[in-house]
């Protein structure tokens, strides 16, 4: 049996991993400039593509790394959490989330980065998120049909395509690199 992922479920190990990983997360977001609302929203006005570049580079690095370590037998794939698919509520939620992102200027993680780096609009965004979470929780008993629609369980793209995870992750990496090259050509054109 593979040793990884570690079973960091004890209170001390859990707190240590939360502190280390959270701090790394915050440093990466701040260094990338993703605590800056005008930089983030530049994505939607064609002036700054940092959101796309940072996010898809991160996804590709983690996806290829994880699939590679699983293929080598270093990581036990069965113990890695794969977010279950609820297709209709996830598409509907994504649409609402995107509108909120361009209105508020941040997503939840980058909003926390903004608040921690002195931005009062980041603090207001966190306040709005707390209020929205409360309202959604109160409304949830009446939203059961939408919330529970299309439960497809743990469904990953490799299973859907019948291809090994490392092949799919590598394919995503190739697509990302092509997208980055195209983006750089378009944005540096004279």
């Amino acid at each position: 049996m593979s040793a990884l992922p570690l079973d960091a479920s004890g209170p001390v190990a859990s707190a240590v991993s939360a502190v280390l990983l959270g701090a790394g997360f915050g440093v990466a977001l701040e260094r990338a400039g993703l605590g800056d609302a005008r930089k983030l929203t530049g994505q939607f006005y064609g002036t700054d593509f940092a959101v796309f570049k940072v996010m898809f580079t991160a996804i590709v690095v983690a996806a290829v790394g994880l699939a590679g370590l699983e293929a080598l037998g270093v990581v036990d794939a069965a113990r890695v959490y794969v977010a279950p698919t609820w297709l209709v509520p996830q598409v509907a939620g994504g649409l609402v989330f995107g509108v909120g992102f361009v209105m508020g200027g941040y997503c939840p993680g980058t909003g926390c980065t903004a608040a921690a780096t002195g931005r009062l609009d980041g603090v207001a965004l966190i306040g709005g998120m707390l209020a929205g979470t409360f309202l959604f929780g109160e409304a949830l008993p009446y939203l059961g049909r939408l919330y529970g629609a299309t439960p497809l369980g743990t469904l990953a793209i490799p299973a859907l395509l019948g291809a090994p995870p490392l092949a799919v992750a590598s394919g995503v990496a190739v697509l990302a690199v092509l997208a980055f090259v195209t983006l750089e050509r378009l944005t540096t054109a004279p």
Partner: protein
Amino acid sequence: MTGPARYANPYLAGAALGAVLLAAFLLTGHGLGASGAMSAVVSAGVEAVAPTHARANPLFGAWTGADGSRSPLSDWIVIEVLALMAGAAISARLAGRWRATVDRGPGITDRRRLAWAAGGGALMACGARLARGCTSGLGLTGGATLSVGAWAFLLALFVGGYAAAPLFRKAWR
């Protein structure tokens, strides 16, 4: 040096973020998150005011436990988000970027910008809870594990953002 330091190259910062995400999978078996901490805080608040109501609710009850035995505020994700904020604050200080300000474009007042930030936050919270995750917990984490729902969420997020962008242009440009 006079002004604040420039931001890092986005691909380099993205690779660093990917390394943190990969480390999260190796250490914990799950990835990173952000909006879950908001759910934890709200659930703890409702539990404090109206425990019976909180425990019977499908969202809050998942955090408090049906008998109130779970403590949402000591959850992993709450510590992770507090550490995120500490890491971001220290990083900004070291780069000379920490500054109390309201981040906005020239065409909007501070007051309206704060109202829009709160409104956007409320909308995002609803979207994230409906989708069962935000850009971190579902987009990044689910994206890296190649979850179909995570990629559908990411695609819908960009569609929603681009569709609504003209409405909020004056906040930014």
